[in-house]
């Protein structure tokens, strides 16, 4: 039984204009698996992440999302989190008056924040007492968000473009984080545009026009993605890449 199983999922953003952002999407992530999700902008990757996490305003029009065999239904975010699902947003929000150390230990008081910060490439002595506010750059904030969900030891971590806003020289830091999730036994749903990040996945899927159009070996899926070949777009050439 897959850890995460999505069956024939349909999502429309507006009932008055029922164009389907997700159009009968079927997809699964196995326990302990790093599963990369590739797709161009606007193909529904982040929408899928919000639906799995149960974010406000995101409810499927039809279809099921099952976690460890049970339908998530209308469970709120915190209940999904307590089942073991968590997510790092593409653009993490800022918080006034909350230090990095506090942010990392809300749910795990005894956590070694220095080790976590070092793992995401930040100097603990410089960052532990800083606020998680607008003074942080986008890349710094992103690294802190990754550390904050790593400490939760989730069963399933959804990483929505963990590499965006992070300089190319630091790609290894992101790979280290993904590896750490895997080492902890977590499954990772990895949404990315970067081939070198996607290549560390155990499996990849390509999303186009609200559907998974190919799935399997990361190298083959990446090749398929780059070839613009698409089974769902009208003339066989992907309009979204």
């Amino acid at each position: 039984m897959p850890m995460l199983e999505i069956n024939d999922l349909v999502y429309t953003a507006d009932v008055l204009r029922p164009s389907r952002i997700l159009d009968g999407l079927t997809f699964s992530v196995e326990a302990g698996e790093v599963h990369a999700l590739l797709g161009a902008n606007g193909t529904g990757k982040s929408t899928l992440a919000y639906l799995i996490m149960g974010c406000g305003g995101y409810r499927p029009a039809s279809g099921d999302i099952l976690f460890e065999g049970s339908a998530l239904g209308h469970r709120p975010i915190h209940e999904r989190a307590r089942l073991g699902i968590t997510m790092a947003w593409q653009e993490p929000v800022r918080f006034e008056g909350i230090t990095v150390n506090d942010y990392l230990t809300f749910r795990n008081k005894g956590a070694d924040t220095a080790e976590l910060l070092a793992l995401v490439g930040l100097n603990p002595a410089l960052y532990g007492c800083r606020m998680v506010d607008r003074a942080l750059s986008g890349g710094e904030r992103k690294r802190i968000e990754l550390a904050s969900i790593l400490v939760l030891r989730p069963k399933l971590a959804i990483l929505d473009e963990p590499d965006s806003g992070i300089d190319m020289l630091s790609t290894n830091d992101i790979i280290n984080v993904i590896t750490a999730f895997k080492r902890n036994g977590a499954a990772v749903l990895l949404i990315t545009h970067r081939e070198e990040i996607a290549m560390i996945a155990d499996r990849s899927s390509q999303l186009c026009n609200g559907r998974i159009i190919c799935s399997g070996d990361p190298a083959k899926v990446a090749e398929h993605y780059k070839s613009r070949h698409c089974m769902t777009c009208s003339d066989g050439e992907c309009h979204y890449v």
Partner: protein
Amino acid sequence: MSELEELIACFSGAGGDEKALADAASAHLAASGHRILSSRTVEGLVVDARGTWNGIRARVTVKAGVKLRNPVHMCFGVLHKKGTQKIEMDVRLEEGASAHFIAHCLFPKAEKVRHIMDATVSIGEGAEMRYSETHYHGLSGGVEVVPKLSVQVGRNGRYFTDFTLTTGRVGKLAIDYTVEVAENAVAELTARVFGHGSDDIHIRDKVLLTGKNARGLIKTRVAIEDDATAEVTGITEGNASGARGHVDCMEIVKDRAVARAIPIVQVNDPGAKVTHEAAIGSVDKRQMETLMAHGLLPEEAVDIIVKGMLR
């Protein structure tokens, strides 16, 4: 327990540094109602304080060039259920002086207490003053606090004030601060207030950037719940070339509480620039979702966000 001991116990409970009051190297002034209970000064600091029929009148001077190493602690309060306390204060920092004042205003048992502050502050050329004020008004909401402050910041001077009332009830609060900032001088006004029950909060901060390259920041953070109301007015005028000002107001509203923000920015010199941002509403949805995705309950997430904002 003597009145002083009671005041000190309350001072300590509100986050005050009890040891500082006993420290011979630190100046302090402690008064309950219209009685001065304890005071100490240090070299370079002149304090002339006396009781009036309804409060305290004090003239505080930091002599030219004197940089006070330790903060000056001020502890004012009314320890009875009913009463009035009017603080009349004249603070002067002479040229090149520097001082940090930490004030606690305490009304722990108040059921019907009025606290009025009428203060003037003059900061000389190149002088720097920091003024941190923490209030505790007890749990009944029977306090009316009316602080009025007029500040002149001289050339190259720096003035920072921070007002905090985040524990217990507020009652009625009507802050009215006006700060005039001279050439190359800086003023930052921060207020953090958490209102509950039927608390009524009015904050009016005005910064006049009158000198070339003067800098001003008004930052207000208010959270209100139950039936509390808040109105925050931040006024900044840029009246000289190179002047830069910003008004930043954030209010979080819960339950039936009502909040209003009125940023007023005015520029009277084409070389000046004043900006503002105001955000009022319930707790930010994305912040909530982020914390809930970490497994926090919605009420835990709200508590963390509000406390962070008021920190």
